[in-house]
């Protein structure tokens, strides 16, 4: 579904991503792990079009997306959760979620003449999602008034509601409470049951081992190992990277 081929991204003399190659299989959860500065978030920024690669290719669904804009990549079916919360603070929770559903809201005349109605189907999707994250009563709350954990849940919901074939999640449980971590794991396991394709970055090894089907390990911009969770757990190279010699 997603192929990264010899991807390179340098910032001045710093090799953030260096000849990085890997592949994501459909209907799997793949975790991208590695120490800080390994280049994981840069890879995510390259996949979602926020950064442009110096060389290499990103192929998604047999299309070369290396030079496409973030909106074009999103419309091809890659939905993203950022590491820092990026909700629209002055909009309500419901408005934040509605924005993810389709792009009919960007059509000027249709909206001016009131032809872009919020259908019952859309309302139902929002209700279901809010029920899943236990936030049914926060529909009309402004995003800026939510707690950090609630913001994280709403942002995850927004990424899930955004029509996609691949969901890329940058540290979905970073900085959240243990109970919220369980909640997010539950949501991701539910997506796993639905055979969704997910690529995630996560530092929490227990969380990663619990939900990932495949793990890719990066260090200094390169892929140093990949395999099933049990394999990776016992890989001496990975142990060395994480714990030191």
């Amino acid at each position: 579904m997603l192929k990264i081929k010899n991807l390179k991204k340098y910032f001045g003399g710093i090799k953030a991503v260096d000849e990085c190659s890997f592949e994501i299989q459909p209907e799997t959860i793949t975790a991208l792990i590695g120490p800080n500065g390994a280049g994981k978030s840069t890879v995510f920024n390259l996949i979602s079009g926020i950064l442009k690669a110096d060389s290499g290719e990103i192929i998604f669904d047999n299309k070369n997306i290396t030079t496409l804009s973030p909106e074009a990549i999103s419309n091809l079916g890659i939905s993203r959760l950022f590491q820092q919360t990026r909700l629209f603070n002055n909009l309500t929770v419901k408005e934040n979620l509605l924005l993810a559903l389709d792009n009919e809201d960007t059509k000027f005349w249709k909206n001016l003449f009131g032809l872009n109605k919020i259908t019952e189907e859309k309302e139902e999707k929002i209700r279901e999602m809010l029920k899943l994250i236990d936030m049914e009563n926060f529909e009309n709350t402004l995003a800026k008034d939510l707690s950090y954990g609630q913001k994280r849940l709403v942002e995850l919901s927004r990424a899930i509601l955004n029509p996609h074939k691949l969901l890329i999640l940058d540290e979905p449980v970073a900085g959240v409470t243990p109970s919220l971590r369980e909640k997010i794991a539950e949501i991701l396991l539910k997506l796993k049951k639905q055979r969704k394709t997910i690529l995630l970055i996560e530092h929490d090894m227990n969380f990663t081992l619990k939900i990932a089907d495949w793990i890719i390990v990066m260090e200094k911009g390169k892929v140093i190992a990949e395999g099933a969770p049990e394999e990776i757990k016992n890989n001496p190279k990975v142990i060395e990277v994480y714990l030191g010699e």
Partner: protein
Amino acid sequence: MVFAYLIHLLILICIYLILAISLQLSVGFTGLLNLGHIAFYCIGAYASALLALNGFPFWICLLAAGILAMIFGFLLSLPTNKLKDDYLALATMAFSFVVYAVALNWTSLTRGPLGLPGIPKPSFHIPLTTYNLQLTTNFSFLLLTFTIALISYLIIKKIISSPFGKVLEATRDDELATRILGKNTFKMKTLALMISAFFAGISGSLYAHYITFIDPSSFTLLQLIPVLCIVIIGGLASLKGTVIATIILILLPEPLRFIGFPSSIVGPMRQILYALILLLILIYKPKGFYGKIELE
């Protein structure tokens, strides 16, 4: 006499209201710190005046003013679309200087500092008759201006409360996150600037036909200050606040006329008054009267 004066003030309120709510659309709702708004007002005023002086009917002058300003809004959006905050403010301010310089120096078209006198008051041909309705009295002009201001208000209200308006607000809050949801924010910002410019052009046309004389001095950056004050004092992303602030800011400096200062003092006093109110609001009520977001 008092009645005529009141009508004059109400006409000014209506013209400034159109100018302020259209600026609110780009600044408050879309987050574009657009200091070139007065240039669209100028383009609308000159386009309408020149067409009217060449015998075109008022409705065509009015629409052409809006459309030409909108085209310039589109052209301005091309080089400025990637700019943000103070960089965008500087670029749009430069645009208003360019338009001012053109109005001042293209003398064969605009008569430069001599201005364009004798702009006709609006008149309408009544269909299927030979009768022309002349809006020569200020009261009839007030009715026309009020109607156009009301229609402008309703259209902008419709835009901002529709899902389209929510995308504009999302672009203001976090452009990258909006793009990641598949929205073309380049298109959204361009549309916002075009709509905003259209209504500024319309208000420019109304101003030209009301005063019946325009010259470049009516379209300097100084003229933008009260409009920007209205937007900030009313509160960013609030139409209700903009209406209230327009009324207050147009009426507040009026007593200065009756104190007996020479006219050379009244102008600067007015600017000082606006600056004082703005300062007090920013200190004690940073969101303005009904603002949804704080000025950053």
